[in-house]
Structures are given as structure tokens and as C-alpha cells.
């Protein structure tokens, strides 16, 4: 069963950032988390080094599809943190745990605009 209300549209660049976020998380996990890499190797027969190469290429391709201003901000924040997009749950930024009163989960239009948290600088994705 689907939620009855129609899904609000999302900013296309936010879609790319979310995809990038998931890919970067997988990359980090394979690179730094020995237990995860071991599971991928032993249960799923994946070569972690090959996987990292493939993921790296996919990440680069997506990064290149960001618009110039978004890319500039992305380049500024991505080297220093694991997450470039952070969820906002019940009005709280999960990057820095500061409340963002303007981005509330009740606002259906909120992910149509690409927003950043003023406190920590991350792009935000409001979980509705």
C-alpha cells in the first residue's frame, strides 16, 4: 500500500546529491570498514578493490553532473565530512543537531528547494 498523498517533487540536484551520498557511503564502508569489506568478499564474492574503482568512477560521473554553484559548495564541504547531505528529522539537522525552524517535516514543498543548514553548511534533505 502506498501513502495516499502524492509525493512532492524534489529538486533534481538534491536527487543527485542523495545518490552521491549513498555511493560515497558505500565507498567509505568498503575502504575503511574491514568487517563490511570482508562480508562483501566472503558472502558475495565481490573484490573490494575492483568495487572501489567502479564506485569511484560512478561518484566522479555524478559529481560532474552537479551544477556549478552546487558543485562549488559540494567541493567545499565534501573533503571534511562523511556526509554532504544530512537528513532533517522533526526540524532538527542531523549533521549538527541544531534546530532548523524553516525546514519542518510538515512542509510538503520543502525538498523542491535545495537548502543548506546555516549552522553546519551541509545540504539538507527533509524527511517527510
Amino acid at each position, binding site marked *: *500500500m*502506498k*501513502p495516499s498523498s502524492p*509525493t512532492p517533487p*524534489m529538486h533534481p540536484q538534491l*536527487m543527485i546529491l*542523495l*545518490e552521491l*551520498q*549513498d*555511493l560515497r*557511503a*558505500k565507498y567509505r*564502508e568498503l575502504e575503511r570498514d574491514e*568487517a*563490511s569489506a570482508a*562480508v*562483501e568478499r566472503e*558472502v*558475495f*564474492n*565481490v*573484490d573490494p578493490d*575492483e*568495487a572501489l574503482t*567502479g*564506485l569511484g568512477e*560512478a561518484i566522479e560521473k555524478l559529481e560532474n553532473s552537479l551544477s556549478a554553484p552546487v558543485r562549488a559548495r559540494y567541493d567545499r564541504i565534501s573533503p571534511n565530512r*562523511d*556526509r554532504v*547531505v544530512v*537528513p532533517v*528529522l522533526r526540524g532538527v539537522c542531523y549533521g549538527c543537531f541544531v534546530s532548523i525552524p524553516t525546514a519542518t517535516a510538515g512542509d510538503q514543498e520543502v*525538498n523542491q528547494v535545495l537548502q543548506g543548514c546555516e549552522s553546519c553548511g551541509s545540504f539538507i*534533505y527533509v*524527511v*517527510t
Partner: protein
Amino acid sequence: MKLRDLFTPDTVKLEIDSDSKDEILKELIELLELDDKSEAILFKTLKRRENLGSTGIGKGIAIPHCRSLVVEETRLAYGRKSNGAEFQAIDGEPVHHFFLIVAPPLEVSNQYLPILGKIAQFAKDPDIPEKLLQIDSPDAFLTLLEERGA
């Protein structure tokens, strides 16, 4: 942490309709009842993972898995395709049983890997694939997990 507690009858589908890998992934994702955008993102992320190598681990079992921002907590779903589907599994055999795992990017409890391990262990138990083919309701699936202490 018990697998039994992470499934509900709603997240168990005993007859997957689709035949292709993509459509099967979408059908599994639908069981989680996310909004359309989240479904689309999750599909892409799962596809990316499949591109690294099939999550079909052999013996008719696949465990598509990923971490994604679109879930707040670890979510599981089970789908069955009685006549099997081509999923590029490690042993080249058709896949009948699909266990979907989606975890948030960061979790305090770090359940993801233990859950993945438990499912792999449960599903690889020699008589489980056959038993899974015999169950006739989502509740019977949950009971089977319970019986195995999984």
C-alpha cells in the same frame, strides 16, 4: 536482535510478479512503503550495488542490500519467486528467495552487518530454501524464522 522482529506480514510477499532483476528490486522496495522519490533513490542505490557484483549468493538466494539516507532504521523485506528468476547469482542458478536489507547511513546500534550475517546464515541452512518454497502465508514465514531462532 531477532530477524523475526524485523519483518512484518506486510513486508513479506510470497509471489513476486516480475521476472527481470530491475523489476524484482522495485517490487521488493515497494514492500517498504516509502514515498516515490525515496523508492527511486533506493532503487538506484541497490542497482549500483548489484553492478559491483550480484547479491545472488547461490542456492536460490539473493540478498540485495545497501545503506541509504531514505530510511531511518534498518528495514527488511522478503520476496519469493516460486519458479525462480535469473539474477546472475554466483552459482548461475535461478533465484527463488529475495531478502532485502536497507540500513541508514549511520546507526548507533550498527545492526546492519549482524543482520546481513544472520540472513546469510539462515538462508544457507540446507533445508531452508525448500521450506521457504512450502510456506503459504506471510505468518508462516515469520513462524519459520521463529522456529529457527532467527
